[in-house]
Each structure stands twice: as structure tokens, then as C-alpha cells.
């Protein structure tokens, strides 16, 4: 597998990969699979009807990982990818996705992807998805991920969704359906700058008794960027749901937080919290008394906030 230096850098940003990962992986670069490995318990195959892959994880697979990063370094490339994950019962796996676009040209580059997770009974999944953009070209870097999660009884899914830099336009849609005793935790971290535009929608249905969801977003909007966060939790059973949107607004940024709760069962306990504010002056002052300039203090506060 040969990757260019730019592609290697993107790979490092989105998947913390410095070399070929251990275990199962599929690396997609400029619309093609440039490296793939299935393991004894995790099988990766190409889809035949659409562009994308199926990842089948055998029941009982423990402590294994799958890396499926995507890098785009070709200006004007637009792709639409469908990846399906079938996570077997009682397994415990780490899935690292992520997409990075380096656009040095004048045409827009766009990666639209659908990730569907079918998580079996009592299985545990940790999913990490990082999105990153770089390149000095005028062409936009656009990422529109759709994530669907179908969780069986007693399953657990923790999702870490990160977009810190360089993505001009994004619309993220996450839909989840949870059965009895299933638990979902989402940590989203988002920073937009310049004239970037980001929309993130969550739609979590708690259908089974004892199911629970915790959707937490930390966001920073700088310069003239725009963000919208829509989080809807629907309680259809005795369940518990919590969503939190905590945002820092800077410069001439705009943030719209729209938390929503829908309870269709008297024992659905649902809570939402949303807060938008600038960096607290006293936080800046404290760090300045340690010798940091105001700008350095601001960076530390944001880095901590988005950690």
C-alpha cells in the first residue's frame, strides 16, 4: 500500500495512525480501497450494489479493533459510501473511523457516508470518528455523515465524534434505536472557524425498558462560523435520557441549540441541558496570573473544553 505524505498526515489526524494498524482495517484513499485486512473474527468485504463495505464481527469477539479511515487529497472528488457494521452478540470491539480531506484545489471535495451499526445482544462497541480538513485551496471540504445505530438488548455503545478543524461544511445526522437495557453514550466535540457551517442532529429512540442514552456535545464557534445542534431524545418505555449541549461562542460566531425531549411513557425520565456563553473572564484571569497571555489562556481553555 502506498500513501502520499499528505495522505499519511491526514491518516494520523483522523485515526492516530502512524503505520498500518493491527487487526482488521480498510483504508480508503481518493475513492478506492488501498489496503484491507480481515482478521479471524472480523471480516471486511466490499458491497456489490453500492460503494462501501460490510464489516462482520463474530459473536464473542473480544478486545479487537477495526480501523476504517478515509482520506481524500484529490480536489473535486465527491463520494458517497455505505458501510454496515454487524457486531455479534457478546463481543467487545473498538471501531475507529474518521475522514480527512486535504483540498489544495479550487473544486469542492465531499465525502458523504452512511454508517449503520447493528449491535447484537450484550455487545459493547466503542466508536471513534474524527473529521479533519486541511489544504489552502478555495475548494470546500465537505463531510456529511449519517450514522444509524440499532441496539439489541443489553448492548452498549459509546461514540466519540470529533471535528476540530478545517471542515467547511458538515451536516451530521445520527439516529439510534435502543432495545431493553441498551445504553448509548455520545461525546461530540465540534469546533468551527472562519465561515464554516456545521449542523448536527441526533434522534435517539429509547424503545426498551431500562434503556438509556447520554448525548453530550461540546462546541466552539469562532470567527463567523455557524453551528446548529439538534438533539431529540424520545422515551417510549421506562428509560432514562440526557442530552447536553455546552457551547463557547467567540468573535462573530452563531450557535443555535435545539434540545428536544419526547416522552411517550410515564416512566421515561428525560433531561436536557443547553448552555451557550463566551469564555468566562475569571478563567482567563486565572491563567493570566500563571503567566499566560490572554490569547494563550483562550487556547488552553478551548483545548481543555474540547478534550
Amino acid at each position, binding site marked *: 500500500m502506498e500513501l502520499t505524505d499528505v495522505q499519511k498526515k491526514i491518516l494520523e489526524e483522523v485515526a492516530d495512525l502512524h503505520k498500518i494498524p493491527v487487526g482488521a482495517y480498510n483504508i480508503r484513499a481518493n475513492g478506492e480501497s488501498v489496503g484491507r485486512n480481515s482478521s479471524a473474527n472480523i471480516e471486511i468485504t466490499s458491497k456489490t450494489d453500492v460503494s462501501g463495505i460490510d464489516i462482520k464481527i463474530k459473536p464473542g469477539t473480544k478486545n479487537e479493533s477495526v480501523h476504517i479511515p478515509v482520506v481524500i487529497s484529490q480536489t473535486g472528488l465527491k463520494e458517497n459510501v455505505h458501510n454496515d457494521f454487524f457486531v455479534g452478540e457478546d463481543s467487545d470491539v473498538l471501531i475507529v473511523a474518521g475522514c480527512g480531506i486535504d483540498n489544495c484545489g479550487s473544486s469542492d471535495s465531499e465525502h458523504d457516508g452512511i454508517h449503520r451499526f447493528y449491535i447484537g445482544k450484550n455487545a459493547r462497541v466503542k466508536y471513534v470518528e474524527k473529521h479533519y480538513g486541511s489544504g489552502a485551496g478555495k475548494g470546500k471540504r465537505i463531510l456529511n455523515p449519517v450514522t444509524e445505530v440499532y441496539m439489541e438488548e443489553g448492548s452498549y455503545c459509546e461514540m466519540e465524534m470529533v471535528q476540530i478543524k478545517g471542515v467547511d461544511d458538515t451536516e451530521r445526522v445520527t439516529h439510534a434505536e435502543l432495545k431493553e437495557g441498551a445504553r448509548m453514550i455520545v461525546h461530540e466535540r465540534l469546533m468551527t472557524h472562519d465561515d464554516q457551517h456545521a449542523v448536527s442532529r441526533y434522534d435517539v429512540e429509547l424503545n426498551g425498558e431500562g434503556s438509556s442514552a447520554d448525548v453530550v456535545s*461540546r462546541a466552539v464557534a469562532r470567527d463567523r462560523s455557524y453551528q446548529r445542534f439538534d438533539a431529540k431524545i424520545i422515551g417510549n418505555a421506562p428509560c432514562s435520557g440526557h442530552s447536553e449541549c*455546552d457551547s463557547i461562542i467567540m468573535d462573530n460566531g452563531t450557535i443555535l441549540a435545539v434540545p428536544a425531549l419526547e416522552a411517550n411513557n410515564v416512566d421515561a425520565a428525560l433531561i436536557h441541558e443547553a448552555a451557550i456563553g463566551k469564555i*468566562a473572564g*475569571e*478563567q482567563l*484571569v*486565572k*491563567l*493570566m*496570573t*500563571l*503567566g*499566560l*497571555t*490572554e490569547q494563550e489562556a483562550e487556547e*488552553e*481553555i478551548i*483545548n*481543555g*473544553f*474540547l*478534550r
Partner: protein
Amino acid sequence: MLELKNIVYQVEENGEGIGILNDVSLVIPDGKLTVITGPNGGGKSTLARIIAGVVKPTSGKIFFNGQDITDMSITDRARLGIGFAFQQPVRFKGIRVVDLIRLAKGEKKLSSSDACKYLAAVGLCAKDYINREVNSSLSGGELKRIEIATVLAKKSALSVFDEPEAGIDLWSFQNLIEVFDGMRKNIEGSSIIIISHQERILQIADEIVLVKEGKIDCQGTCDEILPKLVGTESAVKSCGVVDLWKGGDN
């Protein structure tokens, strides 16, 4: 040496100027632990904040080692060697204890063992705290100790502590006294200002300054000032829990 010359600080209330500090002149000597005490609302904390640069005086001048720092920013004063522990420590989201200590030390990287010694010095079991976020999950007393640890890590030429005992439980108070006593024993080349109401802290002072109604009421060595303070109205007015229990003896 820190020198305050004719410091005035006024705030506006209902269109009227209210004097918080009224022509305060003060010299804080090098190599000494100076405790500034006095009744609540007398202007002690404002004085501390003016020294750190958090508050700008309405008029007057501040000199640090002969340099006029009156118009200097908080950052520049910190870099010049002034450290400041807040009376009410600030909470963050995501910034961990280890991050604050690293920033205080001015280093890009800090080993856990290095960071831990400052926490141990303020009586915190380092491994339980080092990776915790400095957020609302910490109690007031824990935050206060972490605040003091950051100032210890900064190693300033002049360290200012604004009511370090406030919010610290009685059981930890002895430990706090030991921290300051230890600092005092190793004070060479630096100086310490503590804003405090506590007799136990006054007892370890080299110098005591009594601030009342925005003015310096008196200044002198511990032996000169402390006997005058104990049992006076200003001591009673400013009493904390310990003083309350001792109320009958005063």
C-alpha cells in the same frame, strides 16, 4: 520589594464614588511573610487584587523591585514574578489539575511525579487528583488546595494568597499552616503576602498589616501587632469558626 504609593480605589454606586481603598501606602519587605488582616469589607482583598493586576487602582502607583508596574498587565506581572491565589478559585471545564500545575510551572510537559509533589504539599493524595478536571465535581476545599498548589508550582518572587483558609475544613487547617510555615522557612529571595483573619496564620507572620475602612491602620512585626489585635473589635468582627469557638477566651 513591593511598594504601594497612595493607592486609591473607588467604585461607582448610584452615581456616587465609594472609596474602597483610601490613599494606601505600604512597603512589603523581601524575605518576609506579611499577613494583611482586618475586618470584612475593609479592602484587604481589593489590595491583593490590585497587586496581582486583576484590579486597576483609581490612582496611585505600584513598584515591584523598583519598577513601576502600575500599568502592567496581569500576564506581565505574573512573568515578572508575582503569583496570586484566588479567594474563590475558578472552575474550568476539561482543564485537569495536572494541566493547571503544568501551566503554572510554565513547562510544556510535566511528569506526574513532579506535579504530584505540589499536591502532596497541600495535603491532597496526588494520584486521586492529578487527572481530575478542575470543575464543579471538586469541593470548595479541594479547589482551594489546588489553587494553592498552582501558586506553589509557579515559584514566584512574590506570592499573594487571598484568604487561603476560607473554605478549608478545620482538619486540614493544620496542614495549611504547615504549608505556609514551610514556605516561610524557604523564603530566601522571595516574599509572601497572606490575606487572612486567622490567628494561627497571624502567629507565623513576620509582619502584620492591619487594613481597616480602606486604610492602613497599623503595620509592624508580629510581636508588636498581634497582641493588639487579639480580643479587639476588629478580630471579633472578622472571626472565623476557630475564633467563634474561642469567643469566650477573648
